């Protein structure tokens, strides 16, 4: 049905912006979203039915990163681009460069295809949300820089003097994703399909946590809040409720988020002070989040009568409520007691999906229901179908999150249960079997949510079809830019403005407090608090309302704004990570020893198969962990691990001290048929590893690369790598023949993997 023309006029004086790029990205987001969710449903099924691991390429360890990478980069990225290409030209009254947009679009799709193809093939760098190999990382980064150039050019050629708050969020997205992705991807290539991360062990674990959280947040949270601050007031027909809340939300969130990477490493081998800093900022992070939630809800409340009828408002309001819940859950996870229970369990999976399904998915739907009809100059095909989507999405997300909220504590409590006279109550696999019902409920929730997404896809495609393809595209209004050259404020005055000096001073005092002796530390934090409160009171009392404030002047200067955004979002990460990267753990003889050539090859198989998706290598200082897995892990033990494999989820047991516990034959039989050894195991069979050969001629090159990164291999070790690896392999193959009458090639992948497994937690 061909609807009447779009109900809203474009912003005054802007002409009709060129939405062609935004349209393409929106369609790509729909397609990638369907694939990403299908992958999610599939990996959820694999956890319940191990037979779903039907081929090596479809194994859980390889498919889970397909799900996460396609949600983040393919769906999230395209959605963010669609939103920003739609919103930014209207808010800035600036033209889009069509050529840059085309380059951006196609390079991004190419990189996304490469990502979802390479991971099932076992091309995996091995980090958390840093799985993609270096050529794909480079492609993504290059494409992202084209996007950055597009936004910079729009800001420079803008017809609007003041930069709208939504654009601040977009700028933070551009800067944040570029930095997090770059740092997470820093690696030394050995070949096209294998590279080793620049950082190792604890430093790399911190980078993975910090950058992983950063990528997730700056692709699925920050840009969508920017979009919501633009579209929600339009949909509600109301101005944004509060400017102060925007300021608190934006700057508070940017400052705090960078500190909270270490929050995901509570009770690991990360130094105590870094854990405590992450926990402190994690606890307060709910507050800026809720400033955003309240601002959105209050804006929508002013249009309360239309919330029920309008799909856009309905989705935005529900998204805000989910985000509010996620922000509080995040603060709960900053408490050590909650974190000790939640870590390595589904609690975290629930938290992530509270944001991804509840917030990002619903906010994306609200934005698409607003943008798509307007970009094609038509009306939504079926508001009723949008309503069906709404209920499917909300029910699906609630089902999913509720299932995880039960599954996480269930497994956490079972794994820590001890008998009164001492000793553990449950075996690991018993804790896994207990999750069967909740994992089933999660699968149902995911399928329902996915069905809702498909309903939206159908609805939007019908909407676009009805528009007949012509749409309301006009050339972009190439207005002469109204540069604020008449602004008397110099860049330096903005960058050294009172609020900046104030924030830098408080930050400096906090860092000094962290370094100082106990009593001085007490005084400094007290002093910082007094200065902070005094500064806030003074600015409130003395603020001159007749002149534009410092921040209002800042909003007219793109460069100054970008510099301060970068400084704010990097300050926490630099303050926390730089000292730990500069002075990592020292090598301990017997604990920090390089892997032998064959063990190194086995470790590469561990990385390629994505074993980290289910197995941690970090035993926390709790009795129940030590009883189950062995002595507490120290940072020096993983010193030469590039990248670190500390992991974040235990669907199988921790492997940090698996070495020497079982004979080679046990590992062989377990890898071939896990259920023959452990009844009830959900692990996929790794039978294919028995047939794959390891190229031992490449090992020396890998060792040379690792030596460049600081792993102390000697020339002799590198020169003899192939022979040494072959000898190691023969010894294991011989043992398998003697103990189990197993005939397996000494250079097969399964032998290399066994060599690695037997080394974990053991001296060489």
């Amino acid at each position: 049905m061909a609807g009447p023309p779009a109900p809203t006029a474009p912003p005054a004086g802007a002409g009709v912006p060129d939405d062609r790029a935004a349209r393409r990205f929106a369609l790509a987001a729909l397609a990638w979203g369907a694939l990403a969710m299908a992958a999610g449903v599939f990996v959820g099924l694999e956890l319940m039915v191990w037979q779903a691991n039907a081929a090596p390429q479809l194994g859980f360890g390889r498919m889970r990163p397909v799900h996460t990478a396609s949600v983040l980069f393919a769906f999230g990225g395209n959605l963010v681009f669609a939103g920003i290409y739609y919103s930014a030209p209207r808010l800035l009254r600036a033209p889009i460069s069509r050529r840059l947009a085309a380059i951006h679009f196609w390079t991004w799709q190419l990189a996304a295809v490469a990502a979802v193809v390479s991971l099932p093939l076992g091309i995996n760098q091995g980090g958390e949300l840093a799985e993609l190999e270096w050529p794909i990382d480079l492609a993504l980064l290059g494409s992202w820089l084209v996007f950055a150039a597009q936004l910079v050019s729009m800001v420079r050629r803008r017809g609007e003097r003041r930069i709208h708050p939504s654009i601040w969020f977009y700028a933070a997205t551009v800067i944040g994703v570029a930095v997090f992705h770059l740092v997470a991807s820093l690696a030394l290539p050995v070949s096209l399909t294998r590279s080793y991360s620049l950082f190792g062990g604890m430093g790399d674990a911190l980078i993975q946590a910090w950058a992983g959280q950063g990528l997730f947040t700056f692709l699925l949270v920050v840009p969508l809040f920017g979009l919501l601050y633009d579209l929600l007031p339009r949909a509600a027909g109301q101005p944004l409720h509060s400017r102060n809340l925007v300021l608190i939300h934006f700057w508070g969130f940017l400052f705090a988020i960078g500190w909270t990477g270490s929050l995901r490493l509570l009770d690991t081998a990360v130094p105590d002070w870094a854990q405590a800093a992450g926990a402190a900022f994690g606890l307060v992070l709910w507050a800026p989040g809720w400033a955003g939630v309240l601002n959105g809800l209050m804006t929508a409340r002013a249009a309360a009568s239309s919330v029920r009828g309008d799909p856009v408002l309905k989705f935005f309001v529900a998204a805000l409520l989910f985000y509010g819940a996620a922000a509080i859950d995040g603060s709960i996870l900053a408490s050590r007691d909650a974190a000790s229970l939640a870590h390595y369990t589904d609690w975290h999976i629930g938290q992530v999906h509270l944001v991804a399904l509840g917030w990002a998915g619903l906010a994306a739907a609200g934005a698409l229901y607003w943008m798509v009809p307007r970009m094609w100059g038509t009306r939504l095909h079926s508001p009723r179908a949008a309503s069906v989507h709404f209920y499917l999405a909300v029910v699906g997300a609630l089902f999913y999150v509720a299932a995880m909220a039960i599954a996480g504590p269930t497994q956490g409590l079972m794994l820590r249960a001890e008998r009164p006279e001492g000793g553990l109550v449950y075996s690991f696999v018993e804790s896994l079997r207990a999750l069967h019902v909740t994992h089933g409920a999660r699968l149902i929730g995911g399928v329902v949510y996915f069905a809702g997404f498909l309903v939206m896809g159908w609805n939007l495609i019908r909407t676009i079809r009805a528009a007949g393809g012509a749409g309301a595209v006009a050339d972009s209004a190439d207005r002469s830019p109204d540069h604020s050259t008449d602004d008397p404020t110099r860049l330096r005055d903005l960058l050294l403005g009172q609020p900046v000096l104030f924030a830098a001073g408080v930050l400096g005092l906090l860092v000094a407090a962290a370094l100082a002796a106990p009593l001085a530390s007490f005084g400094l934090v007290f002093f910082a608090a007094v200065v902070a409160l005094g500064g806030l009171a003074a600015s409130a009392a003395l603020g001159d309302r007749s002149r534009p404030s410092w921040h209002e002047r800042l909003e007219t200067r793109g460069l100054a704004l970008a510099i301060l955004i970068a400084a704010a979002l990097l300050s926490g990460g630099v303050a926390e990570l730089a000292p730990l990267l500069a002075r990592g753990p020292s090598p301990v003889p017997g604990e920090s020893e390089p892997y032998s050539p064959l063990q190194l090859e086995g470790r590469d198989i561990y990385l390629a198969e994505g074993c980290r998706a289910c197995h941690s290598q970090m035993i926390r200082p709790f009795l129940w962990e030590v009883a189950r897995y062995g002595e507490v892990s120290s940072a020096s033990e993983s010193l030469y691990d590039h990248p670190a494999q500390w992991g974040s989820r235990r669907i199988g047991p921790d492997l940090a001290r698996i070495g020497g516990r079982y004979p080679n034959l046990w590992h062989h039989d377990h890898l071939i048929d896990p259920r023959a050894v452990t009844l009830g195991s959900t692990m996929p069979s790794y039978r294919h590893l028995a047939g794959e050969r390891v190229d031992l001629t490449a090992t020396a090159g890998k060792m040379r690369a690792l030596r460049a990164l600081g792993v102390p291999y000697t020339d002799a070790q590198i020169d003899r790598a192939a022979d040494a690896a072959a000898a190691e392999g023969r010894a294991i193959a011989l043992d398998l023949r003697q103990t189990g009458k197993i005939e397996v090639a000494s250079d097969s992948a399964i032998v290399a993997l066994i060599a690695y497994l037997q080394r974990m937690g053991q001296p060489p």
Partner: protein
Amino acid sequence: MTGPRRTGEPALPGWWLWATALTVAIAAGSWLWNQGLHIGPTPLQRYLADRAAALDTGEPVTDQELVGLARDKLAVQAGADLFSRNCTKCHGARAEGNIGPNLTDGFWIGGGAPVDIHQTILLGRDGKGMPAWGLQLGTGAVKQLAAYVLTLRDTNVAGKAPQGTRWTASPAR
């Protein structure tokens, strides 16, 4: 309509302000408590204290007590059950040795006195692959296990070659 309004700025919600102040105070306070003043234990200190408590056997275990237990049929039976469930992977189904040493000879890596054997089971042997079973099984079970292992001594099941040093009961006993 696209920009936030400047005049008539609504007040920040009171509950939000108070809750924010409260969480900031808790965050700063716990930082000072643990990091500034070092009053609270670090996770590692807390673990070590828990561990010491869990492995505390009350009265010190003596050779006499363990030898006595090795004559107690029920205790030895319980120890044998524990052994077959936990120890055979490494020590073999008949304690003849596999990854771990043969327990049926007269040679001991960690010392062959009853208290030494008990200590090895309770706390493990660092770097030798033997875990601390005290945490997994509890201190009572470790005594039963030690009693059972004492009954295996010098039964000489054919298996792994002897490791460690020969132990002979001192004449004083």
